[in-house]
């Protein structure tokens, strides 16, 4: 059976969606003949060569043609050439093309939905078009399901499959991170682009946390345009001494930080207006994998990634006291922290693996292919 995967995001570009689609493609490659169509990105040739499936890269034309249009033309050509049995639509922006093909040539498609991209007001018309034409919709959390169903999609055609997580490159020993041994490290991992990630609220909770735990250190891994603001915010609250911005880090460094931290935290919130929210929060599971307890904002898809009271603690992301309370509890009760961390690790190893993700996805594809 032939499968065409159309996506805007794909490795070697970094990010959660990129990783998910690559895991899916290599997991399915044993039973499906897969072609991925995606834009060119630096370093793609070496990466593509190592994959057990074909990757077609669309290259932007001279004269600055929109990359999306070029991608769609390329995808259409590949459709005619490869004549797939099923298409996986990796992003709703590619939905109109998929819908056109399904109507004209009768090739069904499965639409992927994450959360932000279908919640943003400006995306609504195109998301409606993409979702309503899909045979099935696969999303990453119950939050994603609600966002999909808000378009009037029948619930029995929507599937939630939690993404997997895996420890990749092992990092350097903790000493390389230059944190004093007595520091109690609170860690966030994520790009500093959107306000909804909630780094600001953790910084606002720091004065309260420091009352209980003077050795607390908030380590922020990731970079982006919000960094200067967060840095100044820490200064305005007189907690600069306890907040460290590491910047962008390699997979190995991120692994080292996960291992070094005492608590992983991301106080994600939902922006009612822009639609911004954490669709799932794979970073929580990655921290769990290292046996770490996590604190997450009760918003978006985070409750799917964090089982409250079992693998971590959910907090009101707009309440600095609630955030501080959860963190100081975990720092002050080693037994609780260990229990949550262990349970999180077991859940990540047993339930949230890529083989399980692929397996469920494969069943859906088989149903779609069978008509």
């Amino acid at each position, binding site marked *: 059976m032939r499968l065409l995967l159309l996506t805007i995001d794909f490795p070697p570009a970094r990010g959660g969606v990129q990783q998910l689609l690559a895991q899916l493609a290599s997991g399915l490659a044993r039973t499906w003949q897969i072609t991925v169509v995606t834009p060119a990105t630096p370093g793609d040739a070496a990466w593509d060569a190592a994959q057990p499936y074909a990757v077609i890269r669309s290259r932007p034309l001279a004269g600055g043609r929109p990359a999306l249009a070029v991608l769609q033309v390329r995808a259409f050509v590949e459709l005619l050439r490869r004549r797939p049995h099923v298409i996986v639509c990796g992003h709703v922006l590619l939905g109109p093309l998929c819908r056109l093909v399904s109507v004209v040539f009768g090739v069904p498609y499965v639409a992927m939905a994450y959360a932000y991209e279908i919640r943003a*007001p400006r995306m609504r018309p195109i998301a409606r078009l993409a979702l309503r034409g899909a045979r099935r919709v696969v999303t990453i959390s119950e939050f994603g399901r609600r966002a999909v169903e808000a378009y009037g999609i029948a619930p029995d055609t929507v599937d939630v499959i939690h993404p997997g997580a895996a420890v990749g490159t092992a990092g350097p020993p903790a000493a390389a991170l230059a944190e004093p041994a007595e520091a109690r490290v609170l860690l966030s991992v994520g790009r500093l682009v959107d306000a909804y990630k909630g780094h*600001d609220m953790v910084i606002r909770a720091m004065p309260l946390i420091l*009352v209980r735990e003077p050795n607390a250190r908030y380590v922020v891994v990731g970079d982006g345009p*919000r960094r200067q*603001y967060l840095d100044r915010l820490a*200064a305005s609250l007189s907690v600069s001494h306890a907040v460290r911005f590491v910047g962008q880090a390699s997979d190995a460094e991120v692994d080292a930080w996960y291992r070094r931290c005492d608590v992983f935290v991301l106080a994600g919130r939902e922006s009612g*207006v*822009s639609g911004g929210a954490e669709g799932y929060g794979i970073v929580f599971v990655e921290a769990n994998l290292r046996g770490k307890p996590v604190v997450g904002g009760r918003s978006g898809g985070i409750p799917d990634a964090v089982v409250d009271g079992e693998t971590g603690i959910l907090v009101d992301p707009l309440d600095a*006291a609630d955030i501080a309370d959860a963190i100081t509890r975990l720092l002050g009760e080693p037994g609780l922290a260990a229990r949550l961390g262990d349970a999180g690790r077991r859940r990540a190893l047993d339930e949230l693996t890529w083989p399980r993700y692929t397996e469920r996805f494969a069943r859906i594809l088989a149903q779609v292919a069978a008509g």
Partner: protein
Amino acid sequence: MCGIVGLAGVEDAALVRRMAGAVAHRGPDGEGFFVGDGVSLGVRRLSIIDPAGSDQPLRNEDGRVLTIFNGEVYNYRRLRPFLEKHGHSFRTAGDAETVVHLYEEYGDAGVHLLRGMFAYAVWDGRHRRLLLARDRLGIKPLYYVQSGARLAFASEIKALLAVPGVSRELDADALQLYLTLQYVPGAATIVKSIRRLPPGHLLTWRDGRVEVRRYWDLVLDEGECRVNAATAAEEFRGLLEESVMDHQISDVPLGVLLSGGIDSAAVTALLAGGGRVKTFTVGFDVAGAEGELAEARVVARHFGTDHHEIVMRPALADVLPDIVRMQDEPVADPAAVPTFFICKFASRSVKVVLTGEGGDELLGGYPRYGWLRLGERLRHRPRLTAATAALLRALPRELSAGRVVRRLDTLVGTAPLEDRHLDWVATMSGDVQRALTGDGGWGATSGFVRRLLHRVGTGDPVHALMYLDFNTWLPDDVLVKTDRMSMAASIEARVPFLDHRLVEFTAGLPASVKVKSLGTKALLRRALRRDLPAATLRRPKRAFLVPLRHWLRGELRDLVDAALTSAAARARGLFQPAAVARLLHEQRTGSHDHSRALWTLLCLQLWLDNVLDAPAAAHD
């Protein structure tokens, strides 16, 4: 809402009673004292929330931690269950008690969880330690005097002047700042021994040692970097609505001071959902300068409010000394006069009023923001500015005195931003100030402004100027006026635009979202475009025009002459008599308009006569 006073390192029941008496107007409904443990605390209470309970000082469970509190905590209903979960038990139904338990739970850092306006003292008897805290934006006042190991503090300067041995010497630098700006900004006051606890600061006293530190600062930077104007406006509206809702918490009747401008109209619009709102507007009995009665009427009619108007026909010369005395600090803001009257008027039917104060500072309501940004941009076009400057110099003298020409002159000049700013806001020119005082001019003020502009750490001149206003003009002029004039009428004024979450969100938006080219308040106009009458939305920013010149020529003429040339004024010798005489003469002949300079001198002199040099016993 209350007045608080206290002494650390001193047990003196009679003195603390006398200090509380000096702020009795802030709290006519009751009083409370604590004397012991080496401290003396006193409070006068105006009951708004939990009128029957909540008598102060409020204590923790074992009675060793107690607080006196002035202000409102708008999120106390949320904090309460949280603190109860941590094992605290509440005795009252009010907001102030949360302060005690928050202190027990988080120490000094408890202040971070309060939403609202406040100034409070916590005495921790277990550690024999005093904490003073003032809200982030300086809505409620707090002053202190340190003398050796002793500390005296109070909501108003008058209470500190009642303490024996407090020096009444004027601060020479503060005087220069006052003359330029019409108020004294920062941590100093006009009285050298009396300090102001700046907004967003804490003071701790233990064993005679005092430490002052900042716990909050305004971050004007692009925190919401991927925002566009439409989503920013929508989110802003949501936060403002939430703030207005929170500011309604009250067990007593409430109204809105309606100015006719867009800020108070926005407050009215968002309040209007919940029943018929009482609105109040003041105007003047001066032909051609009636104030904003007509504009306010448009808003009132649009929302069907229970609207009340008052036209000021006062014997101003009789009332002004009282106003200055109630204002407590010398602040020569002419808007204090109508504010005083509107608060008195509103106090007949309500005990709490919401106002639009802070909207201009938060949303870029002053035209000078846009103009001064243009000026900074022109610096990079030297040929254009040189040509314009040459053109302006070529103008005949008669044409070069106009406002527009002077503005342009400032724009294309080479003066640094701080001096351009002063050119817009100063009460008098540097030359006049130099002639009056015999030295200085704008020097002291210019240096002060420069230091603040550099602290802001952002490249955007609009944000730099907003930071300056949030740290000077807003807390030390606008909010002094609002607090003192409402307290003079024993009513509480609330300022929903200064909810700190709203402020933090708005401060985190790009300056270009708030101030578009030379227009003002682009964000607010957009956020409320479906709520407000078209006329209100279209109305350009107008300064609150008080008919100062008219007053100085008419009913206040004799008072000005008498006050500025009095024996007391001459004896104090702050100003060169010849320079004062010249100002008075030029004003009289109409050759120059020195209205603001004379008003600044008059307010200072009345303050000296009625506050500083008045016998302490006169403050009942």
